[in-house]
């Protein structure tokens, strides 16, 4: 079962980005509330209820969809904000909610049964049995697959489960199993899993060190780079570490994921939707990336399987691109 149409799912950190994504040709936009219920809880970012209602109206008037990510893990004894977020998304008539925590999935299944549920990448469901578990218990309709699978793995999973899948097409490489990475909280005390912030800006510092710039997270030095050298995000997995007497990007290089040249393969694998990452990035990024993918997908729909030339390299992390785990040998 190969879907004839690849849905383009795009990020919006702000209402302005939501409009930019839709104007640039997004089929679907995903966003989150302005609190710890979503995994991009950065200052000045995200939507309040009124903004969400307006954003959904803007999308629906144009026949597009809006998904709401409620994809962090509630703190014990303080689950109300997550339950409220589920109810608010339903009230705003979002097209689906993206969830990760088993408790939140359980709440949504019982209290908002008609609200379509997607499984977030934060749930780290990378195999057929896990996917079946979430489908059987929470009637999950779509799974966002972790960024650790090859195209062959993706195809096999879809064949075995028959589930709708959404895969990352552009953004970070994310080498760790998401939703279960405690590296950033080990250095800062703030958690990506429960507070929605990886490498919180409050703990990031850039210091001049002679001719170099040093990036620090909490009290840990992540990297030192000379002027003009490409800089990665200041996350622990993109730091330089010394092993066997040599400093290297032990986990991942400063490089961005871009699957624009393997869209025909992803389509053939049976993927339903392509996800662009970057709710923390600007609307200029959103417009540029969404525009490029819209063009490539329209070309593909007309049977043009030639890889389109793309100019997204500059906008990618570190100014370089990779197919990440999609190509065997990455691991």
């Amino acid at each position, binding site marked *: 079962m190969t879907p004839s149409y690849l849905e383009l799912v795009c990020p919006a950190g702000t209402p302005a980005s939501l409009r930019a994504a839709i104007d640039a040709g997004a089929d679907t936009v995903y966003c989150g509330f302005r609190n710890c219920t979503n995994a991009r809880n950065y200052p000045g970012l995200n939507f309040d209820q009124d903004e969400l209602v307006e954003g959904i109206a803007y999308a629906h008037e144009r026949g597009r969809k809006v998904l709401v990510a409620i994809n962090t*893990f*509630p*703190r*014990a*004894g303080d*689950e109300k904000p997550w339950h409220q977020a589920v109810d608010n998304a339903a009230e705003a008539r979002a097209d689906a909610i993206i969830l990760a*925590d*088993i*408790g*939140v999935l*359980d*709440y949504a299944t019982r209290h908002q049964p008609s609200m379509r549920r997607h499984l977030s990448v934060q*749930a*780290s469901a*990378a*195999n*057929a*049995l*896990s996917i*079946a*578990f979430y489908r059987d*218990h929470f009637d999950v309709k779509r799974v966002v697959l972790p960024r*650790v*699978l090859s195209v062959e793995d993706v195809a*096999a999973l879809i064949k075995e489960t028959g589930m709708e899948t959404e895969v990352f097409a552009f953004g970070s490489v994310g*080498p*760790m*199993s998401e939703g*279960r*990475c*405690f590296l950033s*909280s*080990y*250095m800062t*005390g703030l*958690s990506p*899993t*429960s507070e929605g912030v990886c490498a919180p800006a409050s703990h990031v510092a850039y210091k001049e060190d002679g001719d170099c710039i*040093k990036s620090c997270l*909490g*009290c*840990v*030095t*992540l990297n*030192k780079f000379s002027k003009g050298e490409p800089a990665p995000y200041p996350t*622990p*997995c993109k730091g*330089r*570490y*010394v*092993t*066997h007497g040599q*400093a*290297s990007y*032990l*986990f991942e290089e400063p490089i961005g994921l871009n699957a624009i040249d393997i869209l025909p393969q992803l389509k053939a694998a049976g993927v339903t939707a392509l996800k662009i990452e970057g709710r923390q990035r600007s609307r200029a990024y959103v417009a540029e990336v969404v525009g490029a993918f819209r063009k490539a997908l329209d070309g593909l729909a007309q049977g043009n399987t030639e890889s389109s030339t793309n100019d997204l390299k500059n906008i990618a992390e570190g100014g370089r691109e990779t197919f990440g*785990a999609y190509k065997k*040998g*990455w*691991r």
Partner: protein
Amino acid sequence: MKKTTTKTKKAASRLTLGPLFFHWPAEKRRDFYFRIADEADIDSVYLGEVVCSKREPFFEDFLPAVTARLRAAGKEVVFSTLALVTSEREMKAILRRVEEGFLIEANDVACLQALKDKPHVIGPFINVFNESSRDFLIRNKAKRIVLPVEIPAASIKTVAGGSKVETEVMVFGRQPLSVAMRCYHARSHGLNKDSCQFVCGQNPDGLQTQTVDGQQILTVNGTQTMSHGYAVLLEELASLQKMGVTHFRLSPQDIDMVETARLYRAVLNKTCAPDEAEIKLKTLTADVPFVNGFLHGREGLAWVQGT
């Protein structure tokens, strides 16, 4: 001798030995467990490979003897599964263990689907941060829940306190901080996971990394990234007991684990003061720093002195 008394003392705290994260030679691994069976005051032992399925075949032949010896010594044996399951082969291996009748520690949600209605342990790699996820998993036949290493005391109080089942917390050892598909151990040698030559076997306590400023923060173990510091929650044992935590996990390191278990047991039994045990533990752990930040709601690498 000790087993008979634990039945009558219903609320007695249990000491457990978590799964070995490191790739030790099979004989060393076997002898380690034999000694645990013969000498260690430990109630439950978790066997099984959590980090990398490529390592699994090495220990397979020794598993029956080790299991038998541990059970003969009155210890509960639990089989821990992989933290990240992706291949068909890995899923089949889990199904086989379930059929063999082992009590399973599920570290990937895949296991829950495979286990259906069989009682099981929820491992620390399945996120249980709150009471709703706890309650769902209990309804799904979890008989014990091992909490994730990141969870702070305030949450443990709620999750363990109101639980109808046993709660386990890791109180000693390098904290597992992330799992991945990519093998960083291999990468550090210029290899990849498929051509790894099992270089992770060269570092029985993990591969030490340093930041470009020479700080020791992270340790690499195959596809797993761990804290450099050993988590040491001796000072906190009494308050964890009060919160309702029933099981206390020691994670195997390449040090004298029998002696480590003895120190923890003494503090649990209140026959040794925690600060005294800490000093003795220091003599076993060389220059590896102690950490306990996560429990105190701080950055994990912090060391908060006992109050």
